[in-house]
């Protein structure tokens, strides 16, 4: 039943991507890919376009030039809801939780797309097993959650979508060391328990480097480094930051 991911097929292929904020070019000729079943980490200093890149691939930000191909299909002009339905899901750094809804309702909304609705119960089970604290708080309003719990809820909600590619924007930002560990452990489990490919954007290098198969470095809107995770270490990455 489970299709073995073909490790030479890119599930996501970005070619010559340009993005602007008004007149300001933020992403320059970016090319990268995520192979089916892989975890890919995208590093880079703050403000250099990591979030914009993810937002553009997710469909929230418009593409100026270039193309985005998902599972072989050109989705460059596709609206967000179509990309989600196809299995490309973006989890924003801003979390964007539904504050007047309970934790449970937020998670259920994560399964809004037609593919995921049938698997609501199993999805919830999986999320609660990864994040027991969310289970404890499931009837509470999302407004009452702490920063770390809100982050877990955002990731959990993204997981409910049964995505083929999950794009997570700075999952560990602002979290305590213990929570960082929990979050990346959860991401590791998501990867091993489902067939989802994962694209993680982070400033923090240690955990993503351990998880990822391949890493990219984005600097001033350009890809300046592309390596298999085994070929590079933290010190080299940080040196390339500056």
């Amino acid at each position, binding site marked *: 039943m489970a299709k073995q991911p073909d490790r030479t097929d890119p599930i996501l292929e970005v070619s010559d991507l340009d993005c602007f904020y008004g007149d300001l070019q933020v992403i320059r000729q970016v090319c990268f890919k995520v192979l089916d079943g892989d975890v890919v980490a995208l590093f880079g200093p703050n403000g250099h376009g990591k979030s914009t890149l993810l937002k553009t691939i997710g469909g929230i930000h418009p593409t100026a030039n270039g193309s985005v191909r998902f599972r072989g299909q050109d989705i460059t002009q596709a609206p967000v*809801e179509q990309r989600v339905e196809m299995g490309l899901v*973006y989890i924003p750094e801003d979390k964007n939780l539904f504050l*007047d809804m309970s934790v449970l309702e937020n998670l259920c909304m994560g399964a809004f797309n037609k593919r995921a*609705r049938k698997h609501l119960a199993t999805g919830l089970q999986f999320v609660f097993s990864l994040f027991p604290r969310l289970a404890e708080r499931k009837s509470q309003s999302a407004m009452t959650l702490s920063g770390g719990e809100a982050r877990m809820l955002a990731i959990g909600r993204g997981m409910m*979508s049964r995505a083929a590619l999950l794009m997570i924007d700075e999952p560990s930002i602002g979290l305590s060391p213990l929570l960082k560990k929990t979050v990346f452990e959860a991401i590791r489990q998501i990867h091993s328990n489902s067939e989802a490919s994962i694209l993680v954007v982070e400033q923090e290098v240690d955990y993503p480097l351990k998880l990822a198969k391949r890493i990219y470095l984005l600097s001033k809107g350009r890809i300046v480094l592309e390596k298999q995770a085994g070929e590079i270490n933290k010190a080299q990455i940080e040196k390339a930051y500056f």
Partner: protein
Amino acid sequence: MSSYFVIDLVNTLLSGLLIGSLYAIMALGLTIIQGVVRIFNFAHGGMSILGGYLTFMFLSGAGFNLIVSMILSCLLMFVFGLILYRGAIVFLVKKPNWEIASVIFLLGLGILMENLILQVFGARVKEIPVFFEDAFEFGFVRINHHDVVLIVFVMVFVLGLNLFFSRTWLGRSIRAVAQDIQGARVVGVNANRTLGFAFGLASAVTGLAGILLASKYYLTPQVGWEWMFKGFIIVVFGGLGTITGAIFAGLVMGLVEALITFYGSQSWVWPAWFVIFLVILLVKPEGLFGRKSASY
């Protein structure tokens, strides 16, 4: 002497319950639009009388029965709301001064609607017949069948709307869009389509409220403004964006109006509305059920 007092009080309270129910449903459309699309619908008056006049037209012009006329009117009002959203609102909210622009546009639309209706239907008072003629009498209490039906109808309708928003995917997607539009997008909600639907729904509810109010009172091209002002006060009183607040405030204001009309005089009704409005703005501007923060 005191038994007359009790009789009068009970009758007044029942009357207040009826008026309050009608005010509550009148405020619902405003609440939905304000909560989801974040604009104040200044065409609300026009839309409520449109619902009434459409029903009148189906009843007397086409000879349909009441239920069919009401259903057709509500469907047409839904389409009206959808077209209004897709044709105008969508463009207005993208502008930098959208809050003012939408108010002016909708106000103008309301004036246009009032005058078009005046042209088409004339200035004479129109009536939508009461649903039932008789009255119940429980000892000293007398209440019209029509009034009971209205109260029950509003209660069932509000309950149904509540279930729609909490138990259906479409209803939840409307709440999601109202609370965090980007969050709604990333879970796969088509925000534009959902907003259009919400606008259509609010329009249909507003039209329905107009029909009910017209059946209890009367219908003229001008009466929509009065309904709209009261609707705005109720929405602010109850709390922006909360349906519970709108229902509660509507009922309270209905009771207040009934009590003042009976124990004071009719001319104190409007002053009472505005005094309460001022007090709320001074004491708890976010409304009874509203929250202090601006975010939803």
